[in-house]
């Protein structure tokens, strides 16, 4: 069953075409890893899915709802598509627990007690229960990113979007975030991940997409593509990432 469907999607910033006639179907349970050179439109494609960017042409259906269906429907899309940012973007005035609880409270309208119970469960899941009452500024980058993942999960999304979730982290902190993402994938969560972590793509990804100049140029099985990249530019790209 497809959960995200790009139909001939175009996205422009002013006169620059950033996505050109993109067709893409993502199915339940897939872990799609998105790679490509800087400026190729990876972030933009991801952000179109939950309407942080509005598409200029074509149609984009998420969980049966079109991004053109209006404000209220877009909010539903956003509840179904959780987002994790490169820069974490935790709310600095709230503790880790409050950050995770705020989605359920403000969006799903849970009572404070229920929301915090759910938040505790999720913090435990990402291994940060003992940091529940710390503010973001008191957490390491890896810990902040794990809280951010828990915050996105708290709204109970059907798909998770990750935009370079480990790029802002020191190498020794990356694995803790990648491990959380892997266990999420193993639970069957549908994921779209923009990343340079080729190891993650190989081990966890079920599908690899290589973008160039606002288009999808390669789409296939990560193990096959990584072991034998026939596309010369993908081959070149992979040599530079390694």
């Amino acid at each position: 069953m497809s959960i995200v469907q790009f139909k001939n999607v175009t996205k422009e910033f002013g006169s620059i075409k950033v996505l050109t006639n993109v067709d893409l179907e993502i199915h339940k349970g897939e872990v799609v890893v998105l790679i490509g050179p800087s400026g190729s439109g990876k972030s933009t494609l991801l952000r179109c899915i939950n309407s942080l960017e509005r598409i200029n042409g074509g149609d984009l259906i998420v969980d049966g709802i079109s991004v053109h269906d209006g404000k209220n429907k877009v909010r539903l899309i956003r509840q179904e598509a959780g987002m994790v940012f490169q820069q974490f973007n935790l709310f600095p005035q709230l503790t880790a627990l409050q950050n995770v609880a705020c989605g359920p409270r403000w969006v799903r309208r849970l009572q404070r007690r229920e929301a915090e119970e759910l938040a505790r469960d999720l913090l435990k899941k990402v291994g940060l229960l003992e940091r529940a009452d710390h503010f973001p500024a008191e957490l390491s980058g890896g810990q902040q990113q794990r809280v951010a993942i828990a915050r996105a999960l708290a709204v109970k999304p059907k798909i998770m979007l990750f935009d370079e979730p480990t790029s802002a982290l020191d190498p020794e902190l990356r694995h803790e975030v990648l491990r959380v993402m892997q266990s999420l994938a193993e639970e069957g969560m549908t994921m779209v991940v923009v990343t340079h972590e080729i190891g993650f793509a190989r081990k966890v990804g079920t599908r690899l997409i290589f973008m160039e100049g606002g288009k999808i140029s390669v789409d296939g099985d990560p193990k096959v593509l990584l072991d034998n990249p026939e596309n010369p530019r993908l081959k070149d790209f992979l040599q530079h990432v390694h």
Partner: protein
Amino acid sequence: MELDWSVVATALPELLAGARITIVIALIGLFGGSAVGALAGLCRVYGGIILNAIAFVYVEVIRGTPMLVQVMFIYFALPLLVDIRIDPFLAAVIAVVINSGAYIAEIFRSALLSINKGLSEAGLALGMPGWKVLTNVVGPLALRRVLAPLGNQFIVSIKDTSLFIVIGVAELTRAGQEIMATNFRAVEIWSAVAVLYLIMTGVLSFLLRVTEKRMRVL
């Protein structure tokens, strides 16, 4: 020259009465000015073309003209344009509201714009409506950044009330002027007036510092 500080003691009740009026004008004026300023600042950032343009013109007109001229206009010109009587006290309050409101609008605008865009995106990405992102995420953060410059504006506005001497409001400077006219003790009286202003702004400064310490700026 011989100084006779006992005249200050004699004049003190009148000076304090003037100071009281200064405080009342500043309190009401700044309360209104903060409301107007917050609203105009919000319009500048989130208002769309029309509200943004209105707020922009308001801020530019007020910032671009002397407060003295604004006071004169409200007290002398406005009653001719629209057929109303404005007493000096009301004119003074309106002047503080309008004048401080313009500067406070800029304070709110820059505070709102200074909040990392990623935070509102994070709120929106959770499925929060825009207004909730403002009230629950951006607003609380912006308020912390508003505090220091807002306090600064309050101090400026308190001192600006001395301008209302020109429309005959019995505020502190006017009180000093009137006492001076009877006893000619310029040094003693103006020193006392200055000290009273210092006490008012000093107390405000102190309160501000206490609040700032309690509220971590993030």
